[in-house]
């Protein structure tokens, strides 16, 4: 059996010592566990709130979405929880007779809806992580929060058209933010299949905001 023998030559040998890899800049300097155990609680809470505020800005501001989506990769569920609670409370306190019903309905709708929409994307073949997608969908509900507050400020006497416009603007903003995320998850021929449930989800929430 003959052996293979020969020499291999590398063409740009002088570049062998320098290797450049694209590295995403670190988002925030993460403290080690020991440091963060000793810090005062205010600092911990402020840091978490800053992260939530940062992600909220990213989701709400269309211009920021052109940047890398890697910043959304470290998901958290506090933000969506706060947003969902705010929405449920805003809608619930308008009907003092059936607050629990509305609160419960909104809460279940938001979390179950986000989970089902994510499951749908996964079943269609996307390989995103479930909680990251739930996180983004939860953050994108924030414009509907703003719409709900606007409608409360407008009051019940306002003509229906203005209330409709406020809710419609919130819906359009929320859908636009989440579509740009959802369309990265699926290939071209299945994109609409993944986007339609998102639109339906926000439509249901916008309907609640308008009607309650």
């Amino acid at each position: 059996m003959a052996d293979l023998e020969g020499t291999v030559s590398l063409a740009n040998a002088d570049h062998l010592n320098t290797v450049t890899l694209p590295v995403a800049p670190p988002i925030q300097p993460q403290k080690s566990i020991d440091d963060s155990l000793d810090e005062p609680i205010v600092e911990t809470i402020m840091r978490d709130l800053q992260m939530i505020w940062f992600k909220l800005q990213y989701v709400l501001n269309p211009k920021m979405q052109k940047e890398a989506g890697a910043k959304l990769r470290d998901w958290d569920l506090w933000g969506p929880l706060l947003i969902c609670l705010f929405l449920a409370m805003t809608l619930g306190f308008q009907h003092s007779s059936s607050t629990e019903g509305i609160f419960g309905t909104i809460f279940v709708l938001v979390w179950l809806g986000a989970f089902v929409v994510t499951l749908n994307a996964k079943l269609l073949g996307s390989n995103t992580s479930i909680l990251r997608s739930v996180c983004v969908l939860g953050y994108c509900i924030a414009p509907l929060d703003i719409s709900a507050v606007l409608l409360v400020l407008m009051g019940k006497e306002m003509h229906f058209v203005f209330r409709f416009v406020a809710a419609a603007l919130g819906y359009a903003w929320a859908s636009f933010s989440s579509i740009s995320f959802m369309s990265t998850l699926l290939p071209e021929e299945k994109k609409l299949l993944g986007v339609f449930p998102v639109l339906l989800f926000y439509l249901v929430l916008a309907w609640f905001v308008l009607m309650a």
Partner: protein
Amino acid sequence: MDTNIRLYNTPASSGPAYLPPAPVSADSVINVSQEGQTSAAAPINTPAPENKSIIPVCGLFTLDYYKPFFNVTTSDVQERIKQAFIPNRPHFFPTIQSNPDVYGPFWIYTSLIFMLAVASNLNYIVQKKSGDPYNFDFNCIGFATSVIYSFGFILPLILNFILNIFGSKTRYVEILCIYGYSTIVFIPAALLSSTGWSIVEWALLLYAGGSSSVFLMTNLWTELEKYILNKRYIIMGLIAASQFLLVLIIKFRFF
């Protein structure tokens, strides 16, 4: 070297690298593993290397079990929806038999639930006198959810069961698919029924019930043709009755 050489490409992880030569036949079998080393191999009649994939205990709880049912593209779903609006052509069933999907039925039912809630609310707004309090009935959503999902998932189960008893070889997913796409006529019917005139509501809902029944019967005709007349009429009667029951429930609860 004049010996007969048979080469087997085996994965590197299977079997030991060294084996004593077994007394098989005059031909020597040389096992070539992936590292390129040759070794005297096991005789031909050893069992194949074990399958290393992990088979889950109950596949029903993994996502991968359900993935084949979502193997459709946007144009597939659009095409199926278009076919579902035309009840008297039997092209639907052969199209889906090779690739039934659960995406269509599930999201059509969900959209229908939402559309019923919206239409019911609009109907109430349109019909109330100006002095009545404005009241949003949140309970109708729960009711709609239970009714539509049970109609949508359990009726195909019953129908598939009956068809299989009578000898057909249909699968639950195929019947579910037909049922799901046939329900799409209810969505525009419900939306347009919110105008408030009773006669319009009845007309639209009866049309929706009739269209979905005809769609179901036309597409199951190839299966139904195999039975004698009595059984065929039983099944057709059941289909029609269930669709009209749905129409009645929708009309009286939501409008």
